């Protein structure tokens, strides 16, 4: 009894500790409210900027949306003189170059990721991954420079003659090759997106629990079998996420593609023909667009690009979240 009274001595029996409770003015002096408000304003301005961006794209493309409606996406004429605009040519170019990029980058990137996660010792793996991630820091205009002066000569001297000899009967490899083409753009894109696939897939593979591997090894499987049948299926969502992220980047990529695709508004089956993409037409024609309808059609192309990359990024996020590995950040 005596001990309990001494223990509570000096403390307000009501449980209130007045000296530790600041009034609003005191808190203001201490700076909590101010700091909260300033940082809140910064956070809010991020939302404001994004909202402004969406609003600008939407309101800036009013004319073509009213004039063409959905036909904008199904017609391929792009004629500033008769004021007739359709996006099909550019959508085709964007989808085709990104598809070529993925066809090359996915096996290459996944193979590299498997090597780095499953085979290479940790130190070597980390060093190689760092070098591959440096590739992602190379600006796209430099990829374009390499594309024009290095890649196109290599393609036209060595790769395309072999392709044409082996697969020339296919319509996708028919016709002459002038260097600038869907194919060149796709190859450059694949080099640009491969670092993303490698670095994210590697992390996803490293996050696969060892019990998965050991269970199958114990059954007498080879290392490859373990990787192919146990590790990859376990990591498939995360890998798909990395591919979607890479796809979003490929779709929005501007400079490197503009420099090697040829910028010819046509739809050709042959991958060796020159073409045009959404981002490239905006980059080339935006400052020269005469007339509101022309300019706003370009803005509508930008809106399309924005919406598509937004949806694909969201899909990637959902896929990686359901993978349930919180270390996987993009």
């Amino acid at each position, binding site marked *: 009894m005596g001990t309990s009274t001494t223990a509570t001595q000096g403390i307000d029996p009501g449980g209130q500790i007045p000296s530790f409770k*600041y009034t609003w003015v005191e808190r203001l002096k*201490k*700076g*909590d409210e101010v700091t*909260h408000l300033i940082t*809140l*304003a*910064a*956070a*809010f*301005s*991020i939302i404001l*900027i*994004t909202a*402004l*961006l969406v609003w*600008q794209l939407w309101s800036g493309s009013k004319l073509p949306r009213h004039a063409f409606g959905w036909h904008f996406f199904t017609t391929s004429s792009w004629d500033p003189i008769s004021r007739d605009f359709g996006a099909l040519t550019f959508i085709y170019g964007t989808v085709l170059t990104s598809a070529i990029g993925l066809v090359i980058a996915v096996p*290459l*990137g996944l*193979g*590299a990721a*498997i*090597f780095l996660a*499953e*085979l290479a010792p940790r130190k070597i793996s980390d060093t190689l991954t760092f*070098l*591959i991630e*440096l*590739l*992602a*820091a190379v*600006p*796209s*205009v*430099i*990829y*374009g*420079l*390499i594309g024009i*002066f290095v890649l196109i000569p290599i393609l036209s001297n060595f790769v395309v003659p072999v392709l044409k000899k082996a697969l020339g009967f296919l319509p996708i490899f028919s016709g002459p090759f002038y260097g600038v083409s869907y194919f060149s753009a796709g190859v450059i894109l694949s080099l640009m997106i491969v*670092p993303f696939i490698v670095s994210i897939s590697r992390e996803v593979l490293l996050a696969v629990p060892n019990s998965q591997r050991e269970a199958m090894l114990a059954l007498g499987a080879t*290392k*490859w*079998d373990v990787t192919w049948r146990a590790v990859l299926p376990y990591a498939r969502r995360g890998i798909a996420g990395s591919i979607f992220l890479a796809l*979003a980047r490929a*779709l*929005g990529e*501007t*400079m490197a593609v503009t420099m090697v695709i040829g910028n010819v508004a046509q739809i050709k089956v042959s991958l060796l023909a020159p073409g045009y993409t959404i981002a490239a037409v*905006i*980059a080339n024609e*935006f*400052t020269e667009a005469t007339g509101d309808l022309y300019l706003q059609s370009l*803005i509508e192309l*930008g809106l399309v*690009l*924005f919406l598509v990359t*937004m949806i694909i*990024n969201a899909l990637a*996020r959902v896929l990686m979240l359901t993978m349930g590995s919180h270390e996987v950040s993009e």
Partner: protein
Amino acid sequence: MRRRYPPLTKRITNVVMLSLTGVCAFMTVSVLFFILGYLVYYGGKSLSLSFFTQLPAPVGQTGGGMANAIVGTVKLLALATVIGIPIGGLGGVYLAEFGTGWFSFLVRYTTDLLNGVPSIVMGIFVYGLVVLPMHHFSTLAGGIALGIMMIPIAVRSTEEFLRAVPRSLRESGMALGASKSETIRNVVIPAAINGIVTGIMLDLARVAGETAPLLFTSFGNEFWSKGWLQPTASLPVVIFNYAISPYEDWHRQAWAAGFVLLAGILMVNIFARFALSRREHMVRR
């Protein structure tokens, strides 16, 4: 005879496929060295002192440099830092220290959204926001475009580094009678400042090479840009314009500019790698 398991075909597949993955890794890494090699070879060959000190020479005249583009890029990056870092950094502080509930979810979501915006679309946005009302291209517009592009990474790296500060540090700050904001200012941010600064440098290195948002904001300029409200040359845009030009001499200049730009960007990245190597999770782009 003793049967061996796994069977021969499986063992062959194993060796072949695993070697192929090694080939993939080797090929991917070698792309970096190809790019570096060509830039060092062509760029180094075309680089001279006048590249850093002189204005571009008229077509047909050899020599000349890109002093105006180098200064232009520095000005654009300075402006981008002034615009992007306060918003991004303070936004990151908000998310790490104050944010809870639906609002911080919304902030995170829009930050990711902003991060995914294709750079050419950012150019359209700032064109409508700044260039159209002012009726001309300007350094200011280019800086704003790059600044907005810096925000998402600044938010994410600041938040991540602040969150990495141990709880005990915050508690000891509070226990000494400091208010929450005093603790943040004097304890938490100083503890995380190395990481935050490194994150900002990586962020700068990322936007330093952006070309698409500058095409219709800061545009280009063959001479010195007078003040912040005039169009300015910048290294990435000059590389683009010179590379697609038909002149041999301009191609050489483009290689030299590419070499300078890439050298700067990669140096920052490598430095950041070593600065952060003690941390387990590097902030990713």
